[in-house]
């Protein structure tokens, strides 16, 4: 995540990390392998162009890939420790976006621009094993968690909900499940998934943390079952692909602290859009309140900021000193000072 940064200019080009294995900025990698996993999901594997080690990552991290005109975040599927290559598995969305570009255009030997890895869905280090829940293409970060637990010799219970014939990495999971301390529970219908989740949440050793990635309705069920089984929120983690639809909100005004400039933000237009239109280079990525990239420091009266993102914690929202300007807004005809 990025906050506005008074030292950014002064330290442009400063090398904070000397070794190449800590580089997370934009750089080029080579496509090493393109392998179809299902009719709609293809696995891409990238290697460094210069033979240098790649940056290690926390399980559940994503890589930002420039795919034609698009920059998309894709979960990395390996354990993340001392990687020699980066693997992503991409579902073709069929909407002319980055996933289609990768399926149609990327071939072994091609050079691509990537950024990261970045971590938004990490394991809690002191967990006593994990309950891992995946729905469909949500398997990708879950597989990363599973592989890291396997490497560390830890316990994991995996629930994989999929449509028959459309399950990526099922063979990898089944192989992992042969290890001691690993369980795999497959579900191919909604009813089955609910039943398996109930069973699994009811049967975890104390100290287990749960992690889920999948379509919205499955995640809602996951949260309901977890709460119904008496799990505290702090032990229930998830990653969403997409944010829920947002209503247009109300008009409000942003005041840029450095210049005093007043920027009107009409209903249905995001604060991010207006800031960019006025030449403020706010970093941004998903534009749906998930990735945290466009977080900006703000000052506003209590209750003025309507936080609509899925990235900030409740504590951070209450603090009221920052917001994700892609989805969050001010209440009707309010004023928010942007610390820029």
């Amino acid at each position, binding site marked *: 995540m990025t906050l506005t940064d008074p030292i950014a200019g002064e330290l442009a080009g400063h090398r*904070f990390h000397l070794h190449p294995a800590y580089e997370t900025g934009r750089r080029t990698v080579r496509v090493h392998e393109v392998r179809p996993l299902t009719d709609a999901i293809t696995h891409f594997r990238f290697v460094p162009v210069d033979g240098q080690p790649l940056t290690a990552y926390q399980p559940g991290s994503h890589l930002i890939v420039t795919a034609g005109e698009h920059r998309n975040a894709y979960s990395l599927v390996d354990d993340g420790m001392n990687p020699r290559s980066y693997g992503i598995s991409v579902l073709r969305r069929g909407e002319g976006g980055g996933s289609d570009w990768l399926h149609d255009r990327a071939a072994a030997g091609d050079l691509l621009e990537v950024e990261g890895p970045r971590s938004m869905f990490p394991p809690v280090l002191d*967990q006593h094993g994990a309950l891992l829940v995946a729905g469909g293409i949500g398997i990708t970060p879950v597989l990363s968690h599973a592989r890291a637990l396997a490497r*560390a010799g830890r316990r994991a219970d995996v629930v994989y909900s999929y449509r028959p014939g459309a399950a990526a990495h099922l063979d990898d999971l089944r192989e992992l499940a042969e290890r001691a301390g690993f369980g795999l529970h497959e579900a191919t219908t909604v009813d089955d998934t609910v039943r398996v989740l109930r069973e699994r949440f009811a049967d975890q050793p104390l100290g287990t943390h749960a992690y889920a990635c999948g379509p919205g309705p499955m995640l809602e069920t996951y949260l309901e079952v977890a709460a119904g089984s008496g799990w505290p929120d702090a032990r229930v983690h998830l990653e969403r692909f997409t944010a829920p639809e947002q209503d247009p909100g109300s008009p409000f005004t942003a005041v840029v602290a450095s210049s005093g400039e007043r920027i009107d933000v009409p209903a249905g237009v995001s604060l991010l859009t207006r800031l960019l239109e006025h030449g403020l280079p706010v970093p941004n990525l998903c534009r749906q309140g998930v990735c945290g990239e466009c977080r900006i420091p703000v000052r506003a009266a209590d209750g003025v900021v309507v936080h609509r993102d899925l990235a900030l914690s409740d504590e951070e929202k209450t603090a009221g000193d920052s917001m994700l300007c892609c989805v969050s807004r001010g209440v009707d005809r309010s004023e928010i000072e942007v610390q820029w």
Partner: protein
Amino acid sequence: MVSRADAVTDTAIAAARSPRYTDEEMAAVGIRPLRTPEVEAFRAQPVDHVGPLPWPFPEDLGAFRYSVNVDPARVPRPTRAGEWGRHLVDLGGADYLTIMTEKRITHDADPHRTKIRRGMEPACWDLLLYYLRDLAITHPEVMHLDEGVDGNPDAFHWRNDLLGTDQRFVLGEWDSIPHGPLEFLSREVPDDMLLVTERDGRLYFDAGAVCFAAAWSVSFDVGMDMYEIHGPVPRMRREGIVARAEQFLRRLPADRVYRRLNWNLAASPTRKYDIALESLPSWGRDMALRQAAGDAIPNVQLRIELEHFVRLPTTGAVTFNIRTFMASLEELKAVPEWCAQLADIVEELPEDIAAYKGFLDFSGDVVAYLRAG
């Protein structure tokens, strides 16, 4: 603490105040420097406690209060006496072998200086790799790291010619490296190693190899959150400093390294690095003894902690590593402006902070000594 006052080799006051160890004493803790020209040149540097001192006060500061005083790391900072902060690790010049011998003696005598809570093992590997890679780049003439040896990407070979270390290890295999990755690293660098990690929205100190704690104890503090650890520090919590420091560390980006300075007048008027609570019996009477002998105040040590914050990639754990620098008030006399500034700051310091820092009883004598012509 082993020291040999008769091993003084040069005339500088600094050297006279520095404990030296014999080759036998160093060999007893596994330190056997190679005889390469590069090592000889490194060891032949003059002992200097003032030049590399990270002076913790801005030029115009006359009154000290706690703050979240962080700045970007690896930016060299010139001072009135020299320079500090060029590298992540300051080996300590000619003092390096002395510091490392004292550190290893401490580790050998007290295994409880290393504490690792469950789940922190990968973070210890993360830390080891980060530091060894950095050292091999910043000190290529005396330190070397080979990666992916014998065709195994996870196999490494580390050599530190200054200490005579020659160690192969396999990433993730705890028993492949003596003392485990965290303490192994602690035995190679002067810095105390601390790792914090986020649980349930708070940062916890969950692993550490700490020999030179300034009157605190790693065994006692490990597993605490930032608020618990800083509970005894006056004003810090009330003024929201702990909350801001925690926020800073929680949001520390992976592509930035920051540092912070802290300072004290040490409770022992000697160059003992180990003034941890565990070893209180060996240093607790130093001040009284020196005061009785009448030479306490010139030997009072300005003790400066340089902390480095790195977010480690495989685990997201953040380092809170502490490098301890010391110079006696007598040595500081070489820089009159520093003496004047320190005298002002100590004199102005509110009682609660001076009492917490442990020098309230002799702060008047310190001010008088620093101002004496």
